[in-house]
C-alpha cells in the first residue's frame, strides 16, 4: 500500500513573493541601515564640559564646522592658519610641548605636570615645601597660541573660570619660561595673570564671539561660538546664509550669475576702511566706550559684524599724526606710562598685534582702497599643504613680500627704484618695507615691522627715541651719518645732535644707554641678516654678549637669538631665565669663546663702534654710556 502523500510542511518565507512585499522589505532594510548609521555617528558624550568655557554658537552664529562642506578650499586655508589655533581645547594633539613630568619653579612655587589618559594635570606647592603640600590636580583645559608661544589654562574648580599655568612654551626653542619672561616687562614684575583673566580679557579676541558671562565675582560661565578666530569673525554670523543656501537652486543661481551673496559678509568686496576694521576689531589698541558698554560686551559680546563701519561698544583711539595732537596730549595727560608702553610719543603704535592703529595712521590709508588686504590674504588660491604652511607664517598675498606691495599704487617708481632709494635695485636698501615699515615695533620676543607707513627721520629719532630705518640696518653708523644722507637725498633738515651722535654708532650707543625697548630693538637688529651684511657683523659680538646679562629677560632672549645668528655661535646654549650670577657666568663664557675662537686678530675694529682697534671695549666711553642708561621701567603692552 502506497503511503498517503504528506502535505508539504509550511516553511516561513523570509522573502515576500509579491512586489509590494519586496519593496516593503527593502524599505525596512534601508530604514534599519539608516538607524544603525545614525546610532554609530551619534556622540553620546556630547554633554558640554563644565570645567571650562564651552563651544556654543548662538544667535546668528553657526561655527566653522558648518562652512566646510560648501567652502572646502577656504576652510582648508583657515584650518592651516594660526588664527584657528589661537585658542584650542587642550588634548594630547593640541599641546605642542611634551609636558608630562615637567617640573618647573617660578613665582616661589614648584609646579609639576602629570599626564593621565591623554589629559594633563598641574599640581603646585610653595617652593621647597614637602611633597605633601602639593595642591589637588588642576586639569589643563585650554590653550592660547600655537605659532610662537603656547599658554596653558587650567581648571579653577570654579565653574567655567580658568586659571593660567604661569609659563609660556616658546615653540621654536622648545622651552618653558615664566610668563613674565615672555613679554618685555621690568624684571621685578612678578605677578602672573589672575584667575579669570582668560574669561574676561583673552576671550575678547582669541575666540570667535566669546561671551564672558560673569556669574558673580571672579566666577564665569563663558562660552564661545568657536575656539580660535574662525570664519564668522570675518564673514559675520552665517545662520541665514547657511539656511538659505540649503536650496541648491539658490546656490547654482549664485554660482552661474557670479552674484555676491547678500546673506554673508565678504571682506574682499568691502572698501578699505571697512575691511580693515574687521581686522582691527582685534588687531588694534581699543577701549570700551564706557563702563556700561563693557558690561554689555561681557554679557553678550558686541553686535558689531564685519561690514559695519564702527565697533559699536568699543573704539580705537588714534593718537598718531599731526591732526591728533590734542587727543594725544589728553591720552598722555591721562596715563603717560600706559601711553608710552603702547605708542611712541608721536602716537605711532610700538607693539605688535595692534597693526590696525598703524595701518589707519598711514598716508596710504587716506583713500578708500588701501587695507590690510592690500598686502595680506586670508585664503590663498593654492591649498596644497606645504604652500599653506608657508603662507601661514605671515599670510602675505602672492608677490606682496616684495616691492610689488607698494608699487601696485606707486607705479611711477617702478622703472627706476634706485633713483628713489639711492641703493642698488637688488639691495635690501631698495626694499620699500625696510625703509618705510622698519622693525621698530616689538612683540613676541622680537622686532616687528611697524605697520604705520612712514619715512626714516633723524629728527624723530632724537625727539621720540624711535630707531630709524637707516640706523636699524647701518648699525655701525652714527645718527649724524643718517641725518647727512637724508639731507643729501631727500632734503631733510639736519637736526642739532649731541657729540655722541656724531662719533658713536647709534646702535652701540643705544644698546648701552637706551631704555629696555631700544636695547631690545637694537639687539634684534643685530641678528637681522641684512643689517649684519650692511654693518660688518664682526663688531656685534661683544655687544650681544654683554646683553646676555641685561636686566630685562626679553632683551636677554633677543640678544641670545641674535648671537646665535652670528658665525661660530649657531646653536649656542644659554638659559635666559637663570639668575644674575649665572647670566654673568654665561656672558663671560661667551666672551671668551668669541675672543679665542671668532675674533679675527688681524681685523681693525672701527672707533665709531665703541671698540678699540683690537676689539676690546673703549672702557671709559662704555662705562659712561652705561652710567647714562635710561632705566625707565618699560612694560610693552602687547
Amino acid at each position, binding site marked *: 500500500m502506497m503511503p498517503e502523500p504528506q502535505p508539504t510542511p509550511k516553511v516561513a518565507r523570509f522573502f515576500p513573493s509579491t512586489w509590494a512585499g519586496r519593496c516593503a522589505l527593502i524599505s525596512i532594510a534601508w530604514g534599519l541601515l539608516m538607524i544603525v548609521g545614525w546610532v554609530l555617528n551619534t556622540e553620546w558624550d556630547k554633554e558640554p564640559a563644565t570645567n571650562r568655557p564651552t563651544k556654543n554658537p548662538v544667535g546668528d552664529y553657526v561655527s566653522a564646522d558648518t562652512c566646510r562642506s*560648501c*567652502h*572646502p*578650499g577656504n576652510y*582648508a586655508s583657515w584650518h592651516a592658519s594660526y588664527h584657528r589655533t589661537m585658542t584650542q581645547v587642550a588634548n594630547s594633539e593640541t599641546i605642542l610641548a611634551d609636558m608630562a613630568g615637567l617640573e618647573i619653579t617660578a613665582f616661589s612655587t614648584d609646579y609639576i605636570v602629570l599626564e593621565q589618559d591623554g589629559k594633563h594635570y598641574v599640581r603646585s606647592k610653595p617652593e621647597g615645601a614637602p611633597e605633601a603640600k602639593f595642591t589637588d590636580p588642576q586639569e589643563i583645559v585650554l590653550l592660547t597660541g600655537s605659532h610662537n608661544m603656547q599658554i596653558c589654562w587650567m581648571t579653577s574648580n570654579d565653574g567655567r573660570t580658568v586659571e593660567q599655568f604661569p609659563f609660556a612654551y616658546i615653540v621654536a626653542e622648545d622651552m618653558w619660561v615664566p610668563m613674565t619672561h615672555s613679554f618685555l616687562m621690568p624684571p621685578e614684575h612678578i605677578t602672573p595673570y589672575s584667575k579669570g583673566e582668560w574669561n574676561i580679557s583673552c576671550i575678547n579676541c582669541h575666540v570667535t564671539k566669546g561671551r564672558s558671562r560673569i556669574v558673580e565675582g571672579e566666577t564665569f560661565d563663558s562660552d564661545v561660538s568657536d575656539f580660535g578666530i574662525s570664519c564668522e569673525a570675518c564673514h559675520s554670523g552665517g545662520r541665514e546664509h547657511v539656511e538659505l543656501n540649503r536650496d541648491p537652486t539658490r546656490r*547654482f543661481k549664485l554660482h552661474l550669475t557670479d552674484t555676491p551673496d547678500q546673506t554673508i559678509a565678504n571682506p574682499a568686496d568691502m572698501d578699505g576702511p571697512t575691511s580693515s576694521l574687521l581686522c582691527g576689531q582685534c588687531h588694534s589698541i581699543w577701549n570700551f566706550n564706557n563702563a556700561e558698554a563693557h558690561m554689555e560686551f561681557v554679557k553678550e559680546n558686541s553686535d558689531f559684524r564685519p561690514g559695519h563701519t564702527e565697533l559699536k561698544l568699543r573704539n580705537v583711539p588714534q593718537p598718531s599724526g599731526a591732526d591728533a595732537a590734542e587727543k594725544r596730549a589728553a591720552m598722555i595727560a591721562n596715563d603717560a606710562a600706559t601711553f608710552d608702553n603702547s605708542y611712541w610719543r608721536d602716537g605711532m603704535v610700538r607693539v605688535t598685534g595692534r597693526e590696525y592703529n598703524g595701518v589707519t595712521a598711514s598716508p596710504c590709508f587716506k583713500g578708500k582702497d588701501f587695507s590690510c588686504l592690500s598686502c595680506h590674504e586670508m585664503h590663498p588660491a*593654492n*591649498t*596644497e599643504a606645504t604652500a599653506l604652511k608657508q603662507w601661514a607664517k605671515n599670510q602675505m598675498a602672492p608677490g606682496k613680500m616684495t616691492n610689488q606691495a607698494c608699487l601696485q599704487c606707486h607705479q611711477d617708481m617702478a622703472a627706476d627704484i634706485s633713483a628713489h632709494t639711492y641703493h642698488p635695485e637688488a639691495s635690501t636698501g631698495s626694499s620699500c618695507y625696510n625703509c618705510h615699515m622698519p622693525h621698530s615695533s616689538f612683540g613676541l620676543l622680537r622686532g616687528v615691522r611697524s605697520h604705520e607707513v612712514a619715512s626714516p627721520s633723524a629728527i624723530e629719532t632724537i625727539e621720540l627715541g624711535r630707531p630709524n630705518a637707516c640706523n636699524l640696518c647701518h648699525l655701525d653708523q652714527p645718527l649724524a651719518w643718517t641725518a647727512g644722507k637724508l639731507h643729501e637725498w631727500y632734503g631733510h633738515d639736519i637736526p642739532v645732535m649731541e657729540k655722541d651722535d656724531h662719533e658713536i654708532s647709534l646702535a652701540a650707543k643705544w644698546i648701552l644707554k637706551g631704555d629696555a625697548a631700544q636695547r631690545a630693538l637694537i639687539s634684534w637688529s643685530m641678528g637681522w641678516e641684512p643689517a649684519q651684511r650692511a654693518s660688518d657683523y664682526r663688531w656685534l659680538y661683544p655687544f650681544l654678549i654683554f646683553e646676555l646679562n641685561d636686566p630685562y629677560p626679553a632683551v636677554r632672549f633677543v640678544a641670545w637669538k641674535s648671537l646665535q645668528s652670528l658665525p661660530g655661535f649657531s646653536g649656542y646654549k644659554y638659559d635666559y631665565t637663570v639668575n644674575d650670577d649665572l647670566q654673568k657666568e654665561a656672558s663671560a663664557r661667551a666672551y671668551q669663546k668669541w675672543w679665542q675662537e671668532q675674533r679675527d686678530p688681524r681685523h681693525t675694529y672701527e672707533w665709531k663702534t665703541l671698540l678699540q682697534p683690537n676689539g676690546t671695549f673703549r672702557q671709559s666711553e662704555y662705562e659712561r654710556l652705561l652710567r647714562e642708561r635710561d632705566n625707565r621701567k618699560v612694560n610693552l603692552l602687547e
Partner: protein
Amino acid sequence: MTTSNRHLRHGWWALFTFLTLGVVLETLHGFKIGWYLNADADIRRLMFTLAHAHGTLLALVNIAAGVTLRVVEGFDLEKNVSRALTWGSIVMPVGFFLGGVVIHGGDPGLGVLLVPVGAFMLVYASACTARNLSKALKSK
C-alpha cells in the same frame, strides 16, 4: 546582435574605460596634482571617484546581465529595459565626471544633473530585470 551580446560588449568596453579612468586618477595622486588633490578640489575628487566607482561597477552589472541572459532559460529583457540599463550605466558615471570638471566651491558643476537621470534609468532597469528573472525562474 542579441541583447546578451550587447550587454557583454558594452560591459567590457565600459570596464576598460572606467578602469582607465581609475589609472588616470591614481596618476593624478602619484604626481600630486593640486587641481585634483588640493583641499579646494574636494568635490572634484569626490565626483571623479564616484564616476570611476560607478562606471566600473555598472560595467560589471552589464556583464552580469549578459551572462545571466545566456545562462537562465526563458529570461529576456525588453528593449527599453536593456537600453535603460545600458544608457543608465553611461549617463550616471559621466554625470559624476562632468560634475567634477567644473566645480563651484563645495558644489559640483551642472553636469551632475545627469546623475539622477541615470539613476532613474538604472532603478527602472534593475527592477524590471529582477521581475523578469523572477518570472523566468518560476516558470522553470
